């Protein structure tokens, strides 16, 4: 029976699990969260990433760099129609090409399923780019040439690309249940909507659209697979070695013991490299067929076309307010463009959970309707801050529009509707630093100097705007870590994670150094190999790596330290309870002259001393029940709009983020700056432009797609960490990776309005849209 306690939040009493009892548990190695004012030596400080040294010398090996003796290169033949049946497939010319080692298609490998709906190699393609056949050859060029020699005869069927078109009666039906995913919209409701609107003094309704942003990772998607002696080894460009291993084993019907996935360095993920794609299975099949290692990477065009993307959304928000700004009702609908197949991508087309509309503002009467729609396109996927980003780009413009109508300051309206309670489950948050974020951002930015309208004349107009930041935290899924202590004092943290490059390794090293009280240089972190690491995280998504793995690492370090103290007691010939440890020295409390330093004690370990190494085990305990983890913040920007060209330039940004306790303030800043710039890209430039007829992406290259460059960034991007004392886990962390993207769109659009008096509700805010709006406003 969990120990419960009562807390009062916003005048109401809630019964929640007592965190000190929940996280302390039994056995002495389970830990309470660090105290609010606890002095920490390593945590909360700036430490550069150790692995950065390998990266600046070019030594770091990514999956893209893996070259094995006898390695073959693979390319895939992809469909050139958006919906078609294969009448004939002729591969003999490809097979005869010198240097070709294997050609696979539904004809000779048709039994390998991809999911419940389809095989890896299709005989009925549903989108341009669907996998039809694959070639392994001595070089990539030969494989490419061979793919071109394969002849396909199609029976072309009707298809649909436009999302509204796909919803109309008579549109080509892509799934047995129709084109709305699983047959009907997903609806969430609370309170009484009609009553809420009846009570409103002001009702506002607007529609917003967001574009298909592509992850555009610098390292393209792909892997090197080697099937040897019944064992499959995959060097993968992945966000999680364990998830990729588990899913490959499942798809290929192999025991987990026969699949090993490695990732030493990852060249960008942002949500696009979780789990497995067809190319993983194809590489494995080609390796099995040839006996050679197979390298299969998508090229940049294929990556843009197929690796997943943020969905296009059309969002309608209708809300009622009292004169004082209090929300009385929200009716929200999102249509999201999905792909042809009934896969996980349909969930990401219009995510039904974590919606800021449901959670961010106190609103008793609310309905949200999510409508993911099938079209003959590749599936969308989780793209940094999925769902919340699209939603906040709309909601935070809407709040500013409402503030103007109500004649309130934008921050005042948001504060009026602040809540410390997670409304869908009526649970208080462990922590909510939203108010502190507004306050700190406003102070750093100089928000009080904001004027309702720009006063600058001429073609350059300046304005300022803000947005809230929101991301949903997690509940603390199972996560394990090991900490091994070696005879020379080396502390090795062993974690099952890939290396996204955002600093999890240095963060875990800091946590272990803190708990064991050893210099950071003595800690090394082993990771990146599914065969040699515990299950720390299935894959690094959801901003969870520190939040999940950090508490497990701390517990493993504490366990190792307890064992060290026992060894010190033996060394000093005193009872365990008599040993105290600080600053690298073990001493007997009763006889202070009896002492041994860290390495004298660890020197007793190892085969030469006939003793085992010390291995500390740790796990992530679930968050104490009854409360919710969410992540908050506020972003403010100043923009300059050139009314002659329509260009919008962000001059400066202040980004205040509540992510619980910051563990490494250097990597923290870098994460927030980088996330914000991805949001800026989505707000102003980035969009997959598709041919309306076929769905082929017309700008499937970096030159035309429009990722921000060093010329597009603000002169100043100031990061303000808002430290809340979160009690959901023993390191007080909440997660940081995704929230920084979410506020950019609202803040920039609101600043544009402040500068020019025009609203662009259709992202990205391109110069032509700005010029059109300015002309229409004259």
């Amino acid at each position: 029976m969990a120990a419960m306690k009562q807390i009062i939040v916003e005048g109401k009493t809630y019964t929640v699990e007592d965190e000190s009892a929940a996280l302390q548990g039994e056995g002495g190695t389970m830990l309470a969260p660090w105290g609010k004012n606890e002095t920490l030596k390593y945590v909360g400080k700036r430490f550069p990433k150790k692995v950065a040294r390998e990266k600046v010398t070019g030594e770091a090996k990514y999956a893209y760099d893996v070259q094995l003796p006898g390695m073959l290169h693979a390319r895939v033949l992809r469909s050139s129609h958006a919906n078609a049946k294969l009448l004939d497939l002729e591969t003999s010319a490809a097979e005869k090409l010198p240097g070709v080692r294997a050609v696979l298609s539904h004809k000779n490998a048709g039994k390998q399923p991809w999911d419940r709906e389809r095989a890896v190699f299709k005989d009925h393609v549903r989108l341009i780019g669907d996998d039809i056949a694959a070639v392994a050859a001595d070089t990539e060029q030969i494989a490419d040439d061979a793919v071109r020699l394969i002849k396909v005869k199609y029976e072309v069927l009707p298809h649909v690309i436009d999302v509204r078109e796909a919803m109309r009666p008579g549109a080509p039906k892509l799934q047995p249940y129709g084109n709305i995913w699983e047959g009907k919209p997903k609806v969430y409701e609370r309170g009484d909507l009609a009553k809420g609107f009846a009570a409103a003094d002001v009702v506002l309704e607007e529609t917003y659209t967001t574009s298909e942003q592509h992850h555009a990772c610098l390292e393209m998607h792909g892997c090197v697979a080697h099937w040897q002696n019944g064992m499959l080894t995959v060097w993968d460009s992945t966000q999680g070695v364990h998830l990729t291993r588990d899913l490959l084993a499942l798809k290929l019907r192999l025991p987990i013991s026969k699949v090993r996935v490695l990732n030493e360095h990852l060249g960008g993920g942002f949500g696009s490299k979780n789990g497995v794609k067809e190319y993983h299975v194809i590489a494995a099949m080609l390796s099995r067929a040839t006996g050679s290692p197979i390298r299969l990477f998508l090229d940049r065009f294929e990556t843009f076309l197929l690796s997943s993307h943020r969905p296009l959304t059309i969002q309608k928000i209708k809300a009622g307010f009292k004169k004082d700004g209090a929300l009385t009702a929200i009716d929200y609908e999102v249509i999201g463009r999905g792909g042809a197949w009934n896969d996980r991508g349909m969930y990401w087309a219009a995510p039904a959970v974590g919606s800021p509309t449901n959670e961010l503002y106190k609103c008793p009467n609310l309905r949200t309707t999510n409508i993911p729609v099938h079209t003959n396109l590749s599936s969308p996927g989780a793209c940094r801050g999925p769902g919340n980003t699209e939603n906040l780009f709309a909601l935070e413009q809407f709040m500013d529009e409402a503030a103007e109508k109500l004649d309130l300051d934008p921050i005042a309206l948001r504060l009026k509707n602040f809540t410390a309670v997670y409304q869908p489950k009526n649970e208080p948050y462990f922590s909510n630093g939203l108010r502190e974020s507004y306050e700190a951002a406003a102070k750093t930015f100089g928000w009080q100097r904001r004027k309702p309208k720009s006063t600058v004349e001429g073609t350059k107009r300046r304005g300022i705007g803000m947005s809230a930041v929101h991301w949903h935290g997690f509940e603390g899924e199972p996560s394990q870590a090991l900490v091994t202590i070696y005879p020379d004092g080396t502390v090795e943290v062993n974690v099952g994670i890939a290396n996204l490059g955002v600093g999890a390794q240095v963060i875990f090293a800091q946590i272990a150094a803190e708990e064991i009280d050893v210099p950071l240089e003595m800690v090394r972190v082993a990771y990146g190999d599914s065969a040699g690491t515990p299950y720390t995280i299935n894959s690094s998504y959801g901003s969870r790596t520190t939040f999940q793995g950090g508490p497990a690492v701390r517990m493993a370090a504490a366990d190792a330290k307890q064992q060290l103290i026992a060894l010190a007691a033996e060394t000093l010939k005193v009872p365990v309870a008599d040993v105290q440890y600080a600053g690298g020295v073990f001493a007997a409390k009763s006889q202070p002259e009896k002492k041994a330093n860290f390495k004298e004690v660890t020197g007793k370990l190892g085969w030469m001393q006939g003793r085992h190494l010390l291995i500390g085990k740790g796990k992530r305990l679930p968050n104490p029940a009854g409360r919710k983890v969410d992540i908050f913040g506020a972003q403010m920007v100043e923009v300059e709009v050139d009314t002659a060209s329509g260009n919008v330039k962000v001059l400066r940004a202040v980004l205040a983020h509540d992510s619980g306790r910051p563990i490494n303030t250097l990597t923290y800043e870098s994460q927030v700056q980088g996330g914000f710039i991805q949001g800026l890209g989505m707000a102003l430039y980035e969009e997959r432009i598709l041919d309306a007829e076929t769905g082929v992406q017309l700008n499937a290259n970096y030159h035309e797609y429009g990722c921000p460059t060093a010329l597009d960034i603000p002169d100043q991007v100031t990061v303000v960490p808002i430290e809340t004392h979160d009690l959901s886990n023993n390191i007080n962390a909440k997660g940081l990776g995704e929230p920084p993207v979410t506020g950019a769109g609202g803040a920039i659009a609101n600043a544009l309005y402040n500068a020019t008096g025009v609203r662009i509700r259709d992202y990205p805010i391109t110069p032509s849209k700005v010029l059109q709006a300015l002309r229409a406003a004259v």
Partner: protein
Amino acid sequence: MITITLNVNGATHKVNVRPGESLLSALRLGLGLTGAKEGCGEGDCGACTVIIDGRTVDSCIYPAGEAQGKKVRTVEGLASNGKLSPLQEAFVEHGAVQCGFCIPGMLMSATALLERNPKPSEAAIRLGLSGNLCRCTGYAKIVEAVRAAASPA
């Protein structure tokens, strides 16, 4: 296959290449120098940037044969005797590296910039790096690192 001679980071190598093979491919597959990266193969992202006779080029669209008789420098040549160059050191210390896939190219562009212009303005740094895409850092700490390396405190 054609045998060509390349001078890379001060050493001379014989490399077999196909007609039209890119310098990037010759470096990576022929010489095993995988520091220069391929992010697009189309000359857009700058991850493959190397320095040829003092000028930066996108090695993915530069024919290997064209580099004969010229001095090619790659990221592997920046450190000497295991000691990082001041620019490399600044990238590490200022937290300018996240995933790192753009960094070899970014460092070559920044190296060429500082050799050309040892005291670049903020605008010159940004312009000098504008051919190199980074998707992780938002550039702020990269610009900061170049600034720091340009004017040692």
